[in-house]
Protein backbone atom coordinates (compact mmCIF):
# COMPACT_ATOMS: atom_id res chain seq x y z
CA UNK A 1 0.00 0.00 0.00
CA UNK A 2 1.36 3.40 -1.01
CA UNK A 3 1.68 5.72 1.98
CA UNK A 4 -0.04 9.08 1.93
CA UNK A 5 1.96 11.27 4.28
CA UNK A 6 -0.22 13.96 5.88
CA UNK A 7 1.84 14.68 9.00
CA UNK A 8 3.72 17.64 7.59
CA UNK A 9 2.71 19.90 10.50
CA UNK A 10 4.90 17.65 12.67
CA UNK A 11 7.70 17.22 10.14
CA UNK A 12 7.61 17.42 6.37
CA UNK A 13 8.24 14.37 4.24
CA UNK A 14 9.30 13.60 1.61
CA UNK A 15 11.98 16.23 1.13
CA UNK A 16 13.02 17.62 -2.26
CA UNK A 17 15.86 15.55 -3.79
CA UNK A 18 18.33 18.43 -3.50
CA UNK A 19 17.93 18.37 0.31
CA UNK A 20 18.97 14.74 0.55
CA UNK A 21 21.78 15.41 -1.95
CA UNK A 22 23.09 18.33 0.14
CA UNK A 23 23.16 16.24 3.33
CA UNK A 24 24.94 13.43 1.50
CA UNK A 25 27.41 15.83 -0.13
CA UNK A 26 28.32 17.25 3.27
CA UNK A 27 28.73 13.82 4.84
CA UNK A 28 30.70 12.35 1.94
CA UNK A 29 32.75 15.23 0.52
CA UNK A 30 33.00 18.03 3.11
CA UNK A 31 32.84 16.73 6.64
CA UNK A 32 34.85 19.51 8.34
CA UNK A 33 33.74 21.38 11.45
CA UNK A 34 32.54 24.88 10.59
CA UNK A 35 34.48 27.57 12.44
CA UNK A 36 37.06 25.15 13.80
CA UNK A 37 40.49 24.78 12.21
CA UNK A 38 41.48 26.76 9.15
CA UNK A 39 41.92 23.90 6.70
CA UNK A 40 40.10 23.82 3.42
CA UNK A 41 37.39 21.34 4.45
CA UNK A 42 36.59 23.26 7.66
CA UNK A 43 36.35 26.44 5.60
CA UNK A 44 34.12 24.68 3.06
CA UNK A 45 31.85 23.56 5.91
CA UNK A 46 31.79 27.18 7.10
CA UNK A 47 30.79 28.34 3.62
CA UNK A 48 27.89 25.90 3.52
CA UNK A 49 26.72 27.13 6.93
CA UNK A 50 27.07 30.75 5.80
CA UNK A 51 25.19 30.12 2.56
CA UNK A 52 22.31 28.64 4.57
CA UNK A 53 22.27 31.76 6.75
CA UNK A 54 22.28 33.95 3.65
CA UNK A 55 19.38 32.06 2.05
CA UNK A 56 17.40 32.40 5.29
CA UNK A 57 18.23 36.12 5.41
CA UNK A 58 16.83 36.51 1.88
CA UNK A 59 13.67 34.57 2.78
CA UNK A 60 12.96 36.55 5.99
CA UNK A 61 14.38 39.88 4.79
CA UNK A 62 17.02 39.95 7.53
CA UNK A 63 19.60 42.72 6.92
CA UNK A 64 22.61 40.75 8.25
CA UNK A 65 22.90 36.94 7.81
CA UNK A 66 25.18 36.84 10.88
CA UNK A 67 22.22 37.86 13.08
CA UNK A 68 20.54 34.51 12.31
CA UNK A 69 21.40 32.02 15.06
CA UNK A 70 21.21 28.39 13.97
CA UNK A 71 19.67 26.08 16.58
CA UNK A 72 18.52 22.48 16.76
CA UNK A 73 14.83 23.39 16.33
CA UNK A 74 12.24 26.12 17.00
CA UNK A 75 11.88 25.02 20.64
CA UNK A 76 15.57 25.70 21.31
CA UNK A 77 15.23 29.11 19.65
CA UNK A 78 12.14 30.01 21.69
CA UNK A 79 13.85 28.91 24.92
CA UNK A 80 16.90 31.03 24.06
CA UNK A 81 14.71 34.07 23.52
CA UNK A 82 12.50 33.61 26.61
CA UNK A 83 15.18 32.60 29.12
CA UNK A 84 17.62 35.08 27.62
CA UNK A 85 15.30 38.07 28.00
CA UNK A 86 12.94 37.54 30.90
CA UNK A 87 13.73 38.22 34.56
CA UNK A 88 11.53 37.76 37.63
CA UNK A 89 9.14 40.72 37.82
CA UNK A 90 9.00 41.16 34.02
CA UNK A 91 5.54 41.01 32.45
CA UNK A 92 5.02 38.93 29.29
CA UNK A 93 1.94 38.62 27.06
CA UNK A 94 1.04 35.59 24.93
CA UNK A 95 -2.09 34.00 23.43
CA UNK A 96 -4.22 30.97 24.28
CA UNK A 97 -3.33 29.35 20.93
CA UNK A 98 0.31 28.64 21.79
CA UNK A 99 2.17 25.36 21.46
CA UNK A 100 3.90 23.97 24.55
CA UNK A 101 7.22 25.13 23.04
CA UNK A 102 6.08 28.58 24.18
CA UNK A 103 3.69 27.67 26.99
CA UNK A 104 5.92 25.34 29.04
CA UNK A 105 8.92 27.71 29.26
CA UNK A 106 6.49 30.54 30.11
CA UNK A 107 4.74 28.53 32.84
CA UNK A 108 8.15 27.64 34.30
CA UNK A 109 9.26 31.27 34.19
CA UNK A 110 5.94 32.22 35.81
CA UNK A 111 6.79 29.89 38.71
CA UNK A 112 10.06 31.84 39.06
CA UNK A 113 8.36 35.24 39.29
CA UNK A 114 7.74 36.29 35.67
CA UNK A 115 4.23 37.76 35.31
CA UNK A 116 2.24 36.15 32.50
CA UNK A 117 -0.94 37.24 30.72
CA UNK A 118 -2.54 34.78 28.29
CA UNK A 119 -4.89 36.58 25.87
CA UNK A 120 -7.85 34.36 24.93
CA UNK A 121 -8.51 33.63 21.25
CA UNK A 122 -11.85 32.78 19.64
CA UNK A 123 -13.00 29.14 19.24
CA UNK A 124 -11.81 29.18 15.62
CA UNK A 125 -8.38 30.29 16.84
CA UNK A 126 -8.48 33.97 15.91
CA UNK A 127 -6.84 36.75 17.91
CA UNK A 128 -8.45 40.15 18.30
CA UNK A 129 -5.53 42.59 18.42
CA UNK A 130 -7.49 44.97 20.67
CA UNK A 131 -7.62 42.19 23.30
CA UNK A 132 -3.84 41.91 23.11
CA UNK A 133 -3.48 45.68 23.30
CA UNK A 134 -5.62 45.73 26.45
CA UNK A 135 -3.24 43.23 28.09
CA UNK A 136 -0.15 45.41 27.58
CA UNK A 137 1.20 47.16 30.68
CA UNK A 138 3.98 49.65 31.33
CA UNK A 139 6.17 46.79 32.62
CA UNK A 140 5.47 44.45 29.67
CA UNK A 141 8.89 43.23 28.59
CA UNK A 142 7.86 40.92 25.73
CA UNK A 143 4.97 39.80 23.54
CA UNK A 144 5.25 36.25 22.20
CA UNK A 145 2.83 34.55 19.83
CA UNK A 146 2.67 31.95 17.09
CA UNK A 147 2.34 32.97 13.45
CA UNK A 148 -0.07 30.10 12.82
CA UNK A 149 -1.60 27.46 15.05
CA UNK A 150 -0.17 23.94 14.86
CA UNK A 151 -3.65 22.59 15.63
CA UNK A 152 -6.03 24.40 13.25
CA UNK A 153 -3.62 26.40 11.07
CA UNK A 154 -5.29 29.74 11.85
CA UNK A 155 -2.89 32.56 10.99
CA UNK A 156 -2.55 35.26 13.65
CA UNK A 157 -2.29 38.94 12.64
CA UNK A 158 1.45 39.23 13.34
CA UNK A 159 1.93 42.39 11.26
CA UNK A 160 -0.82 44.19 13.22
CA UNK A 161 0.66 43.00 16.52
CA UNK A 162 4.11 44.10 15.29
CA UNK A 163 2.88 47.62 14.54
CA UNK A 164 1.42 47.78 18.04
CA UNK A 165 4.46 46.41 19.90
CA UNK A 166 6.87 48.55 17.87
CA UNK A 167 4.87 51.68 18.72
CA UNK A 168 5.09 50.77 22.42
CA UNK A 169 8.77 49.79 22.29
CA UNK A 170 8.00 46.21 23.39
CA UNK A 171 10.03 43.39 21.78
CA UNK A 172 8.01 40.89 19.72
CA UNK A 173 8.93 37.19 19.59
CA UNK A 174 7.19 35.16 16.87
CA UNK A 175 7.02 31.36 16.80
CA UNK A 176 7.04 30.67 13.06
CA UNK A 177 7.33 26.88 13.33
CA UNK A 178 4.21 26.41 11.19
CA UNK A 179 4.75 29.23 8.69
CA UNK A 180 8.45 29.57 7.82
CA UNK A 181 8.55 28.45 4.19
CA UNK A 182 4.75 28.52 3.79
CA UNK A 183 3.82 32.19 4.35
CA UNK A 184 5.57 35.48 3.70
CA UNK A 185 7.65 36.51 6.70
CA UNK A 186 9.38 39.89 6.48
CA UNK A 187 10.93 40.63 9.86
CA UNK A 188 11.40 44.31 9.04
CA UNK A 189 7.97 45.02 7.60
CA UNK A 190 6.24 42.97 10.33
CA UNK A 191 8.38 44.53 13.13
CA UNK A 192 9.48 41.12 14.40
CA UNK A 193 12.34 41.46 16.90
CA UNK A 194 12.91 37.77 17.48
CA UNK A 195 11.83 35.14 14.93
CA UNK A 196 12.01 31.50 15.98
CA UNK A 197 11.73 29.00 13.12
CA UNK A 198 12.21 25.32 12.54
CA UNK A 199 14.02 23.84 9.55
CA UNK A 200 12.24 20.52 9.16
CA UNK A 201 8.67 21.60 8.37
CA UNK A 202 7.80 23.95 5.49
CA UNK A 203 11.47 24.86 4.98
CA UNK A 204 11.83 21.20 3.95
CA UNK A 205 15.16 20.68 5.71
CA UNK A 206 16.27 17.81 7.94
CA UNK A 207 15.18 17.37 11.54
CA UNK A 208 17.50 18.93 14.10
CA UNK A 209 17.65 22.31 12.34
CA UNK A 210 16.09 25.67 13.08
CA UNK A 211 17.05 29.12 14.22
CA UNK A 212 16.45 32.44 15.87
CA UNK A 213 16.64 35.77 14.06
CA UNK A 214 17.96 38.47 16.40
CA UNK A 215 16.45 41.77 15.25
CA UNK A 216 18.30 45.05 15.16
CA UNK A 217 16.36 46.41 18.16
CA UNK A 218 17.57 43.56 20.39
CA UNK A 219 20.78 44.35 22.29
CA UNK A 220 22.82 41.11 22.51
CA UNK A 221 24.28 42.35 25.81
CA UNK A 222 20.74 42.05 27.25
CA UNK A 223 19.93 38.68 25.67
CA UNK A 224 21.79 36.19 27.84
CA UNK A 225 23.09 33.07 26.04
CA UNK A 226 21.44 29.87 27.22
CA UNK A 227 24.41 27.72 26.19
CA UNK A 228 28.03 28.79 26.56
CA UNK A 229 31.14 27.05 25.28
CA UNK A 230 33.57 26.74 22.42
CA UNK A 231 32.89 28.88 19.36
CA UNK A 232 36.18 28.63 17.45
CA UNK A 233 36.73 32.34 18.11
CA UNK A 234 38.49 34.26 20.92
CA UNK A 235 39.99 30.97 22.03
CA UNK A 236 42.36 32.67 24.48
CA UNK A 237 39.44 34.01 26.54
CA UNK A 238 37.36 32.05 29.01
CA UNK A 239 34.40 34.40 28.62
CA UNK A 240 31.66 33.99 26.02
CA UNK A 241 32.08 36.30 22.98
CA UNK A 242 29.54 39.11 22.55
CA UNK A 243 29.35 39.19 18.76
CA UNK A 244 26.89 37.32 16.54
CA UNK A 245 26.43 34.56 15.72
CA UNK A 246 29.10 33.12 18.06
CA UNK A 247 27.47 34.47 21.25
CA UNK A 248 24.57 32.01 20.83
CA UNK A 249 26.22 29.19 18.87
CA UNK A 250 28.50 27.22 21.17
CA UNK A 251 29.48 23.68 20.32
CA UNK A 252 29.96 21.97 16.98
CA UNK A 253 27.34 22.91 14.40
CA UNK A 254 25.02 20.37 12.76
CA UNK A 255 26.87 20.55 9.43
CA UNK A 256 24.91 17.93 7.46
CA UNK A 257 21.59 19.24 8.78
CA UNK A 258 22.44 22.86 8.02
CA UNK A 259 23.56 21.87 4.50
CA UNK A 260 20.18 20.20 3.97
CA UNK A 261 18.35 23.17 5.44
CA UNK A 262 20.14 25.47 3.01
CA UNK A 263 18.96 23.31 0.10
CA UNK A 264 15.40 23.35 1.47
CA UNK A 265 15.38 27.14 1.78
CA UNK A 266 16.77 27.46 -1.75
CA UNK A 267 13.94 25.22 -3.00
CA UNK A 268 11.45 27.54 -1.28
CA UNK A 269 13.13 30.66 -2.71
CA UNK A 270 13.23 29.24 -6.23
CA UNK A 271 9.64 28.07 -6.18
CA UNK A 272 8.48 31.22 -4.38
CA UNK A 273 6.20 31.62 -1.35
CA UNK A 274 3.34 32.84 -3.58
CA UNK A 275 3.36 29.63 -5.63
CA UNK A 276 3.77 27.42 -2.55
CA UNK A 277 0.91 29.20 -0.83
CA UNK A 278 -1.34 28.94 -3.87
CA UNK A 279 -0.71 25.18 -4.17
CA UNK A 280 -1.22 24.54 -0.45
CA UNK A 281 -4.28 26.76 -0.30
CA UNK A 282 -5.93 24.90 -3.17
CA UNK A 283 -5.30 21.53 -1.47
CA UNK A 284 -6.47 22.91 1.89
CA UNK A 285 -9.71 24.13 0.38
CA UNK A 286 -10.26 20.75 -1.27
CA UNK A 287 -9.60 19.01 2.05
CA UNK A 288 -11.85 21.28 4.13
CA UNK A 289 -14.72 21.02 1.65
CA UNK A 290 -14.32 17.27 1.34
CA UNK A 291 -14.33 16.74 5.11
CA UNK A 292 -17.21 19.17 5.66
CA UNK A 293 -19.21 17.14 3.15
CA UNK A 294 -19.11 14.10 5.44
CA UNK A 295 -22.05 14.29 7.85
CA UNK A 296 -20.38 12.70 10.91
CA UNK A 297 -17.26 14.88 10.58
CA UNK A 298 -16.68 18.16 12.36
CA UNK A 299 -13.90 20.39 11.04
CA UNK A 300 -12.31 22.91 13.43
CA UNK A 301 -10.80 26.30 12.69
CA UNK A 302 -11.90 29.05 10.35
CA UNK A 303 -13.07 26.76 7.56
CA UNK A 304 -11.54 29.28 5.18
CA UNK A 305 -8.40 28.09 3.41
CA UNK A 306 -7.25 31.65 2.79
CA UNK A 307 -7.13 32.32 6.55
CA UNK A 308 -4.97 29.37 7.48
CA UNK A 309 -1.99 27.18 6.73
CA UNK A 310 -2.37 23.72 5.21
CA UNK A 311 -3.16 22.15 8.60
CA UNK A 312 -6.71 20.91 9.19
CA UNK A 313 -8.12 19.41 12.40
CA UNK A 314 -11.31 17.34 12.57
CA UNK A 315 -13.14 14.64 14.50
CA UNK A 316 -15.50 11.87 13.50
CA UNK A 317 -18.58 11.72 15.73
CA UNK A 318 -18.42 8.77 18.10
CA UNK A 319 -14.78 7.87 17.44
CA UNK A 320 -11.61 8.71 19.32
CA UNK A 321 -9.00 10.56 17.28
CA UNK A 322 -6.39 7.90 18.07
CA UNK A 323 -8.68 5.17 16.70
CA UNK A 324 -9.31 7.15 13.51
CA UNK A 325 -5.59 7.75 13.00
CA UNK A 326 -4.75 4.10 13.51
CA UNK A 327 -7.40 2.95 11.04
CA UNK A 328 -6.29 5.55 8.50
CA UNK A 329 -2.75 4.15 8.72
CA UNK A 330 -3.62 0.44 8.88
CA UNK A 331 -6.39 0.36 6.26
CA UNK A 332 -5.59 3.25 3.94
CA UNK A 333 -1.90 4.13 4.45
CA UNK A 334 -2.87 7.68 5.43
CA UNK A 335 -0.40 8.99 8.02
CA UNK A 336 -1.52 11.78 10.37
CA UNK A 337 -1.39 12.87 14.00
CA UNK A 338 -4.21 12.46 16.54
CA UNK A 339 -4.52 13.87 20.06
CA UNK A 340 -3.50 17.17 21.58
CA UNK A 341 -0.50 18.04 19.37
CA UNK A 342 1.53 19.43 22.32
CA UNK A 343 -0.93 22.32 22.51
CA UNK A 344 -3.42 21.81 25.39
CA UNK A 345 -4.21 25.53 25.59
CA UNK A 346 -5.09 25.68 21.89
CA UNK A 347 -7.35 22.64 22.26
CA UNK A 348 -9.10 24.27 25.25
CA UNK A 349 -9.62 27.35 23.08
CA UNK A 350 -11.24 25.44 20.22
CA UNK A 351 -13.21 23.21 22.64
CA UNK A 352 -11.48 19.89 22.00
CA UNK A 353 -9.64 19.38 25.30
CA UNK A 354 -8.93 16.67 26.46
CA UNK A 355 -10.33 14.71 23.54
CA UNK A 356 -8.07 16.20 20.89
CA UNK A 357 -8.51 16.01 17.12
CA UNK A 358 -7.28 14.19 14.05
CA UNK A 359 -4.84 16.49 12.27
CA UNK A 360 -4.00 16.44 8.57
CA UNK A 361 -0.97 18.59 7.75
CA UNK A 362 -0.33 19.08 4.04
CA UNK A 363 2.86 20.19 2.35
CA UNK A 364 3.77 21.69 -0.99
CA UNK A 365 4.72 18.19 -2.16
CA UNK A 366 1.25 16.70 -1.58
CA UNK A 367 -1.11 16.25 -4.54
CA UNK A 368 -4.84 16.65 -5.14
CA UNK A 369 -5.04 12.86 -5.68
CA UNK A 370 -3.59 12.23 -2.24
CA UNK A 371 -6.05 14.65 -0.64
CA UNK A 372 -8.92 12.98 -2.50
CA UNK A 373 -7.81 9.54 -1.30
CA UNK A 374 -7.56 10.81 2.30
CA UNK A 375 -11.09 12.26 2.13
CA UNK A 376 -12.39 8.94 0.76
CA UNK A 377 -10.69 7.10 3.64
CA UNK A 378 -12.27 9.39 6.26
CA UNK A 379 -15.66 8.95 4.55
CA UNK A 380 -15.30 5.18 4.73
CA UNK A 381 -14.42 5.22 8.43
CA UNK A 382 -17.19 7.72 9.22
CA UNK A 383 -19.79 5.63 7.40
CA UNK A 384 -18.78 2.57 9.43
CA UNK A 385 -19.03 4.57 12.66
CA UNK A 386 -22.54 5.75 11.79
CA UNK A 387 -23.71 2.24 10.88
CA UNK A 388 -22.34 0.90 14.16
CA UNK A 389 -24.13 3.62 16.05
CA UNK A 390 -27.39 2.76 14.23
CA UNK A 391 -27.37 -0.84 15.48
Amino acid at each position, binding site marked *: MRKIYLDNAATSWPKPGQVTDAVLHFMRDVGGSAGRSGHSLAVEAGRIV*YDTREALATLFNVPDPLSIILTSNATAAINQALFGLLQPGDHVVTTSMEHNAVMRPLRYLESKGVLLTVVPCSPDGRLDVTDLEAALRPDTRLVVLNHASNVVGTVLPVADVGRLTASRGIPLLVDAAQTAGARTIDVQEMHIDLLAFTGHKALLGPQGTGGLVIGTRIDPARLVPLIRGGTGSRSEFEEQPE*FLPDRYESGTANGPGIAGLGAGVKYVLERGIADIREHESRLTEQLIQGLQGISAVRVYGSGDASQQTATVSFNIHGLESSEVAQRLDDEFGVLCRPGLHCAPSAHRTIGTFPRGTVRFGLSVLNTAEEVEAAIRAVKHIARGARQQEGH
Partner: protein
Amino acid sequence: MNGIRARLRSGRRKATTGAASPRVEYAVFLFESTQGAIKAERALLRAGLSIKLIPTPRQLSSDCGTALRCDWSDVDRATEALRLARVSFASVHQIKDQL
Protein backbone atom coordinates in the same frame (compact mmCIF):
# COMPACT_ATOMS: atom_id res chain seq x y z
CA MET B 1 54.94 34.45 6.26
CA ASN B 2 56.77 37.25 8.02
CA GLY B 3 57.39 40.98 7.88
CA ILE B 4 54.24 42.25 9.54
CA ARG B 5 54.25 45.96 8.97
CA ALA B 6 50.98 47.24 10.27
CA ARG B 7 48.57 46.23 12.92
CA LEU B 8 45.64 48.42 13.76
CA ARG B 9 42.33 47.54 15.35
CA SER B 10 38.87 48.89 14.54
CA GLY B 11 39.12 48.19 10.87
CA ARG B 12 41.63 50.94 10.19
CA ARG B 13 44.80 50.26 8.33
CA LYS B 14 48.16 51.80 7.87
CA ALA B 15 50.21 51.39 4.77
CA THR B 16 53.92 51.28 5.20
CA THR B 17 56.38 52.66 2.77
CA GLY B 18 59.77 51.34 2.01
CA ALA B 19 62.18 50.58 -0.71
CA ALA B 20 60.95 48.27 -3.44
CA SER B 21 61.78 44.71 -2.52
CA PRO B 22 61.58 41.44 -4.40
CA ARG B 23 58.84 40.20 -2.09
CA VAL B 24 55.09 39.76 -2.48
CA GLU B 25 52.98 42.05 -0.35
CA TYR B 26 49.67 40.83 0.98
CA ALA B 27 46.86 42.38 2.95
CA VAL B 28 45.46 40.08 5.63
CA PHE B 29 42.03 40.92 7.05
CA LEU B 30 41.05 39.55 10.44
CA PHE B 31 37.48 38.99 11.65
CA GLU B 32 35.70 38.34 14.90
CA SER B 33 34.17 35.10 13.68
CA THR B 34 34.73 32.58 10.91
CA GLN B 35 31.25 33.30 9.62
CA GLY B 36 32.30 36.95 9.34
CA ALA B 37 35.35 35.90 7.31
CA ILE B 38 33.16 33.86 4.98
CA LYS B 39 30.69 36.72 4.65
CA ALA B 40 33.67 38.86 3.56
CA GLU B 41 34.83 36.20 1.10
CA ARG B 42 31.38 36.09 -0.49
CA ALA B 43 31.25 39.91 -0.74
CA LEU B 44 34.74 40.25 -2.24
CA LEU B 45 34.27 37.44 -4.76
CA ARG B 46 31.05 39.14 -5.87
CA ALA B 47 33.03 42.37 -6.23
CA GLY B 48 35.41 40.53 -8.56
CA LEU B 49 38.47 40.56 -6.31
CA SER B 50 41.02 37.77 -6.16
CA ILE B 51 41.19 36.64 -2.55
CA LYS B 52 41.88 33.58 -0.44
CA LEU B 53 40.75 32.41 2.98
CA ILE B 54 43.76 31.29 5.03
CA PRO B 55 44.36 30.04 8.58
CA THR B 56 44.99 33.14 10.68
CA PRO B 57 48.79 33.67 10.95
CA ARG B 58 49.58 32.92 14.58
CA GLN B 59 51.60 36.14 15.00
CA LEU B 60 48.55 38.26 14.23
CA SER B 61 45.75 37.14 16.51
CA SER B 62 43.79 34.18 17.71
CA ASP B 63 40.43 35.96 17.47
CA CYS B 64 39.24 33.59 14.83
CA GLY B 65 40.92 30.78 12.98
CA THR B 66 40.21 32.03 9.48
CA ALA B 67 41.60 35.18 7.87
CA LEU B 68 41.28 36.64 4.38
CA ARG B 69 44.22 37.48 2.15
CA CYS B 70 44.48 39.60 -0.99
CA ASP B 71 47.25 41.41 -2.81
CA TRP B 72 48.29 44.56 -0.98
CA SER B 73 47.65 46.47 -4.19
CA ASP B 74 43.95 45.53 -3.85
CA VAL B 75 43.61 46.60 -0.22
CA ASP B 76 41.73 49.82 -0.98
CA ARG B 77 39.31 48.12 -3.36
CA ALA B 78 38.74 45.32 -0.84
CA THR B 79 38.17 47.72 2.05
CA GLU B 80 35.69 49.70 -0.03
CA ALA B 81 33.88 46.53 -1.19
CA LEU B 82 33.56 45.36 2.43
CA ARG B 83 32.22 48.76 3.45
CA LEU B 84 29.64 48.70 0.65
CA ALA B 85 28.57 45.16 1.61
CA ARG B 86 28.41 46.20 5.29
CA VAL B 87 30.92 43.56 6.33
CA SER B 88 32.89 44.56 9.39
CA PHE B 89 36.42 43.34 10.03
CA ALA B 90 38.57 43.53 13.13
CA SER B 91 41.82 44.69 11.50
CA VAL B 92 43.93 44.57 8.36
CA HIS B 93 47.64 43.88 8.22
CA GLN B 94 50.37 44.26 5.61
CA ILE B 95 52.44 41.13 5.28
CA LYS B 96 55.43 40.42 3.07
CA ASP B 97 56.18 36.95 1.86
CA GLN B 98 59.66 35.94 0.81
CA LEU B 99 59.69 34.89 -2.78
